[in-house]
């Protein structure tokens, strides 16, 4: 059901883990639905210098987490916010239709982590 690219990323995902003292962190999903995704960011001058993920979910959820974190690294937060799940899925060469919601999670987790960063900035 998954293409080779997705399986390859699932087999060797990048950016697994959690950044210590992150500048922004976002967690979305819940165990009842079978997906939880956490993305933590290190941000310097509004540029994402590092991104890590932890995911409880299917192979698609893990693959999209990896690819999405790869894609936002080195981007400004505004650029990162423009990376939709559609772009991530295209990068992976497509996902089965019933798996598209897993990629939405990655998009949402990134948004949430950036929001977290922004609110921390305001607070500071």
């Amino acid at each position, binding site marked *: 059901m*998954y293409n080779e690219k997705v*399986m390859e990323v*699932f*087999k060797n*995902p990048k950016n*697994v*883990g*959690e950044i210590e003292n992150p500048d922004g962190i976002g*967690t979305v999903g819940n*165990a*009842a*639905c*079978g*997906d*939880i*995704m*956490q993305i933590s960011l290190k941000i310097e001058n509004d540029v994402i210098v590092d991104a890590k*993920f*932890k*995911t*409880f*979910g*299917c*192979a698609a*959820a*893990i693959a999209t987490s990896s690819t999405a974190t790869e894609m936002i690294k080195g981007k400004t937060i505004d650029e990162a916010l423009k990376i939709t799940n559609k772009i991530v899925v295209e990068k992976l060469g497509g996902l*089965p239709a*019933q798996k598209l*919601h897993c990629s939405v999670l990655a998009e949402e987790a990134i948004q949430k982590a950036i929001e977290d960063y922004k609110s921390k900035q305001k607070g500071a």
Partner: protein
Amino acid sequence: MLNKPIYFDHAATTPLDKKVLEKMLPYFTENFGNANSQHVFGRNAVKGVDEARDSIAKIIGAKPGEIYFTSGGTEADNWALRGVAHAFKDKGRKIIISPIEHAAMISTAKALEKEGFIIEYMKVDGEGFVDLDHLKSIVDDDTILVACMMANNEVGTIEPIKEIAKIAHEKGALAFSDAVQAAGVLKIDVKDLGVDLMSMSSHKIYGPKGVGLLYIKTGVRIESIITGGHQERTKRGGTTNVPGVIGFAEAFRIADENLEENAKYVSSLRDRFIKRVLAEVPFVKLNGPVDGAKRLPANADFSFKYIEGESILFSLDLAGIAVSSGSACSSGSLEPSHVLLALGLPDELAHGSIRFSFGKHNTVEEVDYCVEEIKTAVDRLRKMSPLFKAEGEINYV
């Protein structure tokens, strides 16, 4: 050397036995006749089908006239449920089923509910066993059918069908059992069990796919759902799948002849596997009966805490091991397994389940290899899981 990929998904389907194939082959070519035809080609086909029917009937203690061939377990389940509901709709409206039935049953029951039938569910305990006292309390004069599978396909629980049938009969209801996972694996005598209807399928016992049967006890009223010609004593239309039926009977014969020996062998693999996984993989729960005698000999089902089933399935797939996941994430709906939820598992554990089902060709070496690969896969996925850090890391070694 291990031959890979390793197949541990025999509850999904099995490879066709070569002896079965040999028996089937002439019925595709020389004996290709339509079992309905009156000429010699037809008579040859009928002869094969009659022998198949006799052979299966004998194995399960039925009369040949009580065996109705179908396109598989799903059709037989549909027929039993719909056919009895429609034949008895003037007598009552209530149908009682177990909550851990196969989708073929659950979906059909839901469809009948829309037609106005009342579906009630039995209670099961944490290992999947039907609560007989509760069942007694819900069967009433309005009940037309009580349906419970003989053995569960996901967690392997073997149900007390004889007692369930008795409870149904006390209130004048019929008793049906889906024996798709049990036929050819457990000894079945329909008369002794006392069921009125029973479904079976060929492809779970090294027979061909697309053929099964419904046992209908003489005198039990049932409406047809596949209407057509005069096949199967006018109860089930459609040109008989002659090679399929022949293959089913041969597979059943072989399974029955080797029943004890097979059960002994696959349960030895199962027991070794369960023992090792429980001892060597932390944060794991065995789903289904602990007592091996009350569990399908080939079945082992585990929930691996903190990780999701499909990701385990594909990790093992990459390691050359074929298993299945109860988590419906892998089947597209985002519901965790209805079976595990009925057993009382929390969502998170119900999402993290994997079923291993062994077969006669599997080996101890394969089992041991699988245990090692599980350890690697589970460890890797837990390192990726946000839940693991939150709860488990401290105890984890």
